[in-house]
């Protein structure tokens, strides 16, 4: 069952938070709502859930208008940022809760809770107290609880934001594996580009209450609709090509070359950031003064003030590479 949003608007005290959102969340697809704070992504998620009423527009669950239906009457699964597990119930009690309030007999709900816990690999934790679980385990219980009543849509609000970087990467992979086979639309909110790209089939980038761009992670990264999108989903330098057009260059598209090799640009380095697996050079094109960022090998011995030749690698995607964009002669000489 697809979820469709038609012309959704939301105003808080005369301030427009959402300005006419049209979207489809297809079944079996993970859609990530990405955007900076205040872009309206959580409000949009809560409108889908029925927790926040829309000021205008319609929410359709498989063609059925549920705009005026309250959250408790919609068939949704919602995973909260802090998981919101019930502290007085065991793991099994939490997962059984949505079945209990729907009047499912005790025996059946125990079995269904066991099945849901098995999906998230928590079957052995059924009788455990919530307080004894780690953050990752709590998240899995929250997902099992959200899925046990066969919802029409699974919604996740910033599921990884409370985790430290190492754990975050591992949980992201686990979450991706959990969400991938689900037959319902999955909508996930995050402000983190890496989480979005790691989890999404489709990314919707919201900016100031509107959709700045929607597409696959590859689309957003390689063919950003505008400069704001390009900068939000990664480090972007904008340079002017021979024809006078501003063009996007990603740091990883540039590589250092030797003094006798052919090069595409001479870069004056202002700052060198050691990133562990690589070095990030921040500076400007020597001749034009345009800002540029390049990622180079961690072995290169570089310092602020150096002028180095850079060459563009050919990109796999549809985006133009610096060589194509600038042309060697036009850029450097």
């Amino acid at each position, binding site marked *: 069952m697809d979820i469709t949003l038609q012309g959704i608007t939301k105003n808080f005290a005369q301030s427009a938070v959402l300005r006419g959102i049209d979207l489809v969340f297809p079944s079996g697809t993970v859609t990530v709502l990405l955007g900076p704070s205040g872009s309206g992504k959580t409000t949009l998620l809560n409108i889908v*859930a029925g*927790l926040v009423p829309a000021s205008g527009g319609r929410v359709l669950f498989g063609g059925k208008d549920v705009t005026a239906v*309250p959250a*408790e009457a919609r068939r949704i699964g919602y995973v909260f940022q802090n998981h*919101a597990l*019930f502290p007085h119930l065991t793991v099994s009690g939490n997962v059984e809760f949505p079945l209990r*309030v729907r009047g499912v007999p005790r025996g059946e709900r125990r079995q269904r809770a066991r099945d849901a816990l098995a999906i998230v690999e928590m079957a052995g934790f059924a009788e455990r107290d919530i307080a004894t679980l780690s953050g990752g385990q709590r998240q899995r219980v929250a997902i099992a609880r959200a899925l046990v*009543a066969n919802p029409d849509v699974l919604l996740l609000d910033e599921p990884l934001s409370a985790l430290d970087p190492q754990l975050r990467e591992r949980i992201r992979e686990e979450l991706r594996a959990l969400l991938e086979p689900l037959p319902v639309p999955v909508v996930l909110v995050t402000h983190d580009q890496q989480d979005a790209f790691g989890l999404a089939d489709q990314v919707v980038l919201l900016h100031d209450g509107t959709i700045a761009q929607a597409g696959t992670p590859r689309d957003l990264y390689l063919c950003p609709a505008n400069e704001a999108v390009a900068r939000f989903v990664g480090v972007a330098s904008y340079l002017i090509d021979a024809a006078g057009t501003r063009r996007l260059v990603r740091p990883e598209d540039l590589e250092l070359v030797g003094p006798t090799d052919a090069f595409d640009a001479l870069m004056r380095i202002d700052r060198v950031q050691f990133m562990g697996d690589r070095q990030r050079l921040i500076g400007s094109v020597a001749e034009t003064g345009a800002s540029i960022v390049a990622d180079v090998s961690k072995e290169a011995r570089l310092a602020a003030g150096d002028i180095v030749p850079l060459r563009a690698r050919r990109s796999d995607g549809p985006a133009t590479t610096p060589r194509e964009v600038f042309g060697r002669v036009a850029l450097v000489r």
Partner: protein
Amino acid sequence: MSPLSVDLAPTTVRPPGRGAAVVLWGAIEPIVVWLAPLLLAAPLLFLFVGSFARSWDSRGLSGVTLANMAEAFEAVRESIVFSWMLALGTAIIATAIAVPLAYATRTSSHRLGRFLGGMVDLPVILPALLLAMGLMLAYPFLQGGWIILLIAHVVQTLPFAMWPVVSALSVLDVATLDTAGRTLGASPFQRLTLLVLPNVWRSALTGAATSFVLSFSETGSSLFLGSPYYRPIGVVLVDSFINQDQRISAAAAVLFILCLLPALAIIELTLGNGRKGSKARTEATSSHDFPSFPKINQGGNA
């Protein structure tokens, strides 16, 4: 010591010029700590001893007898039974209102909910006399009956029944749990009974016991709203201290205190269990969520 060893010997650093203050506080601390219990214990001791005294006059106390207690029991028996019933009814009604009201004020985003929550606190700052006068003017047809006393006691004790519940709901982050309940399909009644009550019953019991104690010992509004047929124990005690032998009054006061002991025990037990429970939860969470840090060798070479 090896250059790699870590010296973890405790070092005492005393701020300059604070030695005298520390010594002074050391001297007065026992007085400050013991003053309040002693101030409370002295009158209780006098009441207790006086209630068993054969005579109590300007020369002091003398002799031991149970006659005062028997006479006092006869004088306050009916009032104690009535006050027990009144306080029990007050505690039940106040708690039945306090829990859903606290839940509504904590989860409602409407100003009306918060306004109602604020209104509940009004009797704390208003004198009981004013409340009694207002009730007499508003409900003249209830005067002389027990219902007007019940209304007055419920209104006066409601804030005290509600505060422990509000506090428990704040710690619980009930707004998030309520929202979670909504997304899982629970109706408002199911959220109250299945999510809120199981988490706040101990606080609700504390509030109920507090409400019971306050109602049982209430005199301010009861003096105005009571009648010859419905005289709460507080009114009888006031009457006794003004008009009767002080040995009888003391005995009546001791009986009054004995009647309050079960409620005080409930308050102490529920508060004590609450403290124990919260500690256990914190420990379980912290021991599991955080990895153990490598230990530093405190002695010898590292």
